[in-house]
């Protein structure tokens, strides 16, 4: 018997969540990648002579380092998206406002990602 408490079909609650393993796992995998990258960068920073422009730019102009940095930029955006979406889902109840903030989050992250990639590849 259908009652007023049923939340399936046309009365399904729109919460924007997948309730699945995917976001949990992607947040942890991207976190592990960023942690690893941090260690790799720190090792390069502390090993070697005094840090100035030449050595700083040389670190990022290595092809493998560009590869790694690009992966981490994408990982960061993905990681931040999962985290920010969690925040909006926890605290923002009106669907129109939550959707607006989620769209703004994506715009913010995609814009910053594009800028960071541009910095990396024109080096």
């Amino acid at each position, binding site marked *: 018997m259908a009652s007023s408490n049923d939340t399936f079909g046309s009365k399904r609650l729109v919460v924007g969540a997948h309730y699945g393993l995917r976001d949990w796992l992607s947040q942890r995998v991207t976190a592990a990648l960023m942690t690893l990258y941090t260690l790799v960068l720190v090792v390069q920073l502390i090993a070697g002579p005094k840090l100035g422009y030449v050595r700083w730019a040389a670190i990022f102009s290595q092809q493998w380092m560009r590869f790694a940095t690009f992966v981490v930029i994408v990982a960061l955006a993905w990681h931040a998206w999962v*985290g920010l979406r969690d925040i909006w889902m926890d605290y923002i109840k009106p669907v129109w406002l939550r959707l607006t903030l989620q769209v703004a989050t994506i715009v913010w992250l995609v814009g910053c990602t594009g800028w960071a990639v541009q910095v990396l590849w024109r080096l």
Partner: protein
Amino acid sequence: MADDHKPRPVYTNIHVSQIVAYRLPPAGVVSILHRISGALMFLLLPLVVWLLDVSLTSEVSYERFSSAFVAGIGIVPAFLLKLVMLALIWAFLHHLIAGVRHLWMDATHSVSLQQGRISALITLGSSIALTVVLGAKLFGLY
């Protein structure tokens, strides 16, 4: 038969005004700071990309990057920029260490109250200690 059931308890989110009355355990403090530090880094992301931009693009822009921490940049005095960087450094360290704590708990099922308490205190202590060390460098104390 249904009348035998007690009314089911209802749990609601605490209201902002109730927060001060709650005594959070260390693990709770780490948890909310994990969220706050993440949100802070998200909001300051354009600043980080800008720093990457000016520090990497050319020697001339690198000079602008260095002088921002000495003479300020635009209407932002150097001291304020350093304070924001200090907040970013703490946010990064706390978020990183609290995240590693999560991975460690997931991997080893270290989820007893005692383990949670000790690892939370280690997280808070080590992130603040490292922030002090790097902050002293930022403000030119060594």
